[in-house]
């Protein structure tokens, strides 16, 4: 980076940008001191940490806007072992998170249209379509996305990312690292861990070549500690939702999970979640629930319907329903959390640390069988004391959705848990019928109410 571009970057991002975003955060926090006139009486006021979250995300995208002028940039999938890139000081951008931003801002139809005109079928994942449309058109609600020097995907969330990132690699003409995680039908074996570990070794070599420097054990461990701490803090926040009334709902969690995705391995995420925990505990102490009159508690399975999050929160809250837990926000929970928790970060042994990294990422919920996911849901229903389950039958996510029909049948018929299969698409509103969804939701609520 030249001196001029370094000065320019620091001026725009670290001086002007940071000051502006800090001011915006303070302004937001100040505004929150007064009661919000349009506050929905069925929902708790916004969490006080919302302006902090906004600052964090905006700073991330602000960095992203200029990142390619001063450091190496990698585009990464949400379930990828990003720790090795963070240790090499890459700026990491998550197209899925960007996709969610596009979804919330309702820009997906336009962006997807660009990809569809190129020949990408509308049946493909709407994250991928929106992202490819954004890449080709240059349109994005976050101003500008930095050009990647490296693409890094991991198939532990789906095979789609492999195809999607290949298209990106072809478009940007940059190296693609793919960590191929064999799907776990039963239990993770040494054979699979060894395979993923070897791929991580290949990945490090490529990432080092692109970064022009070598990974240091010290830096890797530092990143690992941040990642581990963030995962454990995030899980603690989710665990606090076992309290009645639940201090935050899954609709809050959907937005609050951004740092665990985007900033895993950074101190920002640790600081943020530490503050959030304090606030959530205070809510519990004050008897504040995410839904003011929480009567029933539900589980949400699959990704949120990004363009309808608020609406669903309001409709359910009106009936006294709180979605206290979600398999999606628990993606860093379960087996994965236990493995991350067990990592001995004091060990100066890269071989050991890579084995643990391989094991943790193999255990992603989406990389395990439908039966495993059913058991996770049953455990959550019990632990969170839930009254029903909403399975978002997500047209854009086959790995998450296939098996849901049987899961619904088991939950209802074998375990007597009211369950609904709600058809939608996480990002494309063209595959969502509001009327049909609300009718189904009303019928589901009736079943929950009638259950003794």
């Amino acid at each position, binding site marked *: 980076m030249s001196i001029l571009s370094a000065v320019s970057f620091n001026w725009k991002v670290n001086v002007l940008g940071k000051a502006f975003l800090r001011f915006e955060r303070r302004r937001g926090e100040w505004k929150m001191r007064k009661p919000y006139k349009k506050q929905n009486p069925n929902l708790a006021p916004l969490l006080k940490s919302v302006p902090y979250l906004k600052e964090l995300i905006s700073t991330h995208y602000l960095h992203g806007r200029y990142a390619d002028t001063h450091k190496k940039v990698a585009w990464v999938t949400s379930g990828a072992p990003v720790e090795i890139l963070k240790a090499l000081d890459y700026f990491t951008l998550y197209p899925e998170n960007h996709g969610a931003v596009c979804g919330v801002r309702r820009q997906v139809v336009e962006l997807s249209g660009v990809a569809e005109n190129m020949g990408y079928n509308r049946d493909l*994942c709407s994250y991928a379509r929106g992202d490819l449309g954004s890449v080709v058109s240059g349109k994005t609600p976050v101003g500008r996305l930095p050009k990647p020097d490296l693409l890094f995907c991991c198939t532990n969330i789906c095979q789609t990312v*492999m195809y999607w990132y290949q298209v990106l690699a072809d478009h940007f003409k940059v190296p693609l690292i793919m960590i191929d995680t064999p799907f776990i039908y039963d239990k993770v074996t040494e054979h699979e861990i060894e395979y993923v570990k070897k791929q991580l070794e290949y990945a490090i070599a490529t990432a080092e070549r692109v970064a022009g420097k070598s990974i240091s054990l010290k830096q890797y461990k530092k990143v690992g500690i941040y990642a581990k701490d963030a995962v454990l803090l995030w899980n603690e926040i989710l665990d606090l939702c076992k309290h009645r009334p639940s201090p935050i709902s899954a609709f809050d969690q959907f937005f609050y999970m951004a740092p665990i995705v985007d900033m895993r391995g950074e101190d920002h995420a640790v600081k943020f979640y530490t503050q959030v925990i304090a606030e959530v505990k205070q809510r519990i102490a004050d008897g504040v629930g995410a839904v003011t009159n929480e009567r029933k508690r539900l589980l949400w399975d699959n990704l949120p319907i990004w363009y309808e999050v608020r609406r669903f929160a309001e409709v359910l809250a009106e009936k006294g329903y709180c979605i206290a837990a979600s398999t999606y926000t628990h993606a860093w929970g379960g087996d994965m959390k236990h493995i991350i928790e067990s990592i001995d970060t004091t060990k100066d042994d890269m071989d050991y640390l890579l084995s643990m990294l391989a094991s943790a990422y193999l255990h992603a919920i989406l990389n395990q069988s*439908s039966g495993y996911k059913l058991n996770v849901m049953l455990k959550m229903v019990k632990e969170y004391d839930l009254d029903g389950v909403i399975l978002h039958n997500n047209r854009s996510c086959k790995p998450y959705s296939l098996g849901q029909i*049987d899961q619904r049948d088991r939950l209802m018929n074998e375990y007597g848990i009211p369950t609904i299969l709600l058809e939608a698409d996480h990002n494309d509103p063209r595959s969502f019928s509001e009327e049909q969804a609300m009718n189904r939701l009303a019928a589901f609520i009736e079943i929950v109410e009638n259950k003794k």
Partner: protein
Amino acid sequence: MDATIPSRQKVMKDHKDAGGFTAAVFPIHYPRPLFRAYNVLPVEVWGPPKADPHLWEAHLQTYTCSVIRNGLSFFIAGGLDGVDMLVVPHCCDTLQGLGSILQNYLPQNKRVLTLYIPRDSREIDINYLAREMKILSGRIGEVTGTELDESKLIKCIDEEDRSNAIVGRMFQQRTQLSCSDREFYEIIRSREYLPADAFITLVEGFMARAKNQDGGRIPVVISGIIPEPMDIFNSLNGIGLTVVGDDLFTTGRRIYSRSDSTDPWTRMSEMIIKGPPDSTRGNFLTNRVKYLVDLTKESGARGVIFYHVKFCEPEQFYYPALKKGLENAGIPSVLVEAEIGDPLPGQVVTRLEAFKEVIS
């Protein structure tokens, strides 16, 4: 063309009667020789066209491909009751889901064996798949109650190499064979259930008899998943097109090359991993484009027909790059979609007729 192809049911019955085992294998890539070495006849399940379309609805969403939907219906209807095991190679998210559904939810008295196919072709991937095959071998042994005879395995791999070579030769000599595309494909697709030696004998007999193509049809390449309904070939020939190059999952993409390794596990692994570029194995777009352009040029085809099954994500993702790559090479292409079990839509035929005009 006068080639008598024994029916699937008869082949399975004969094999069982002779004391053998049978395995129903879902798409796409798997080690045929390994099953045969255990005296297991692998019979592929490519979404049988006559399966009851309603049975899958209790387990699968409408946005899954008909290959898997029909395969599941066929299984639920009892079509696979006679087999000793089910095999689900992991080749896409839908097959992944199917494997889970079969293992976790559907009551049955037979084992569901899975196999993960790596998405790259480095040495670690070859070694990984070889190890996967060894694990699979142990599971087949558990079902059959027999142990693997490695010399028999090597013999079966040799036979499979011959089988691959003869299919390759069929395509090379396609323009000299006087038969319809449908007859040609009925022969080739019998490989989905015939023992290797029976298949080789069948093809050799066919090749000896089928000579002197009458010509006159415009040569094309077909790319996609599966040539179902097979009426597609009647339509193609009817409008004056003939398939000379194949880039289908069922056929062309499983003409595996011979491996030089002396280790049978590595041979089987390399066979699959070093096969023709394929979307489900994650081969790079550039490799797929080059392969398809070369196949078209080498076969003398004047265009490419993308024959897709709806909701096949791997193929849908590669299509725009393939189309563009072909365009850059001056090769016209057309995309048509069909569903297994449905009659060939008239719209498809109309598009193919229009395509013929373009490449005439």
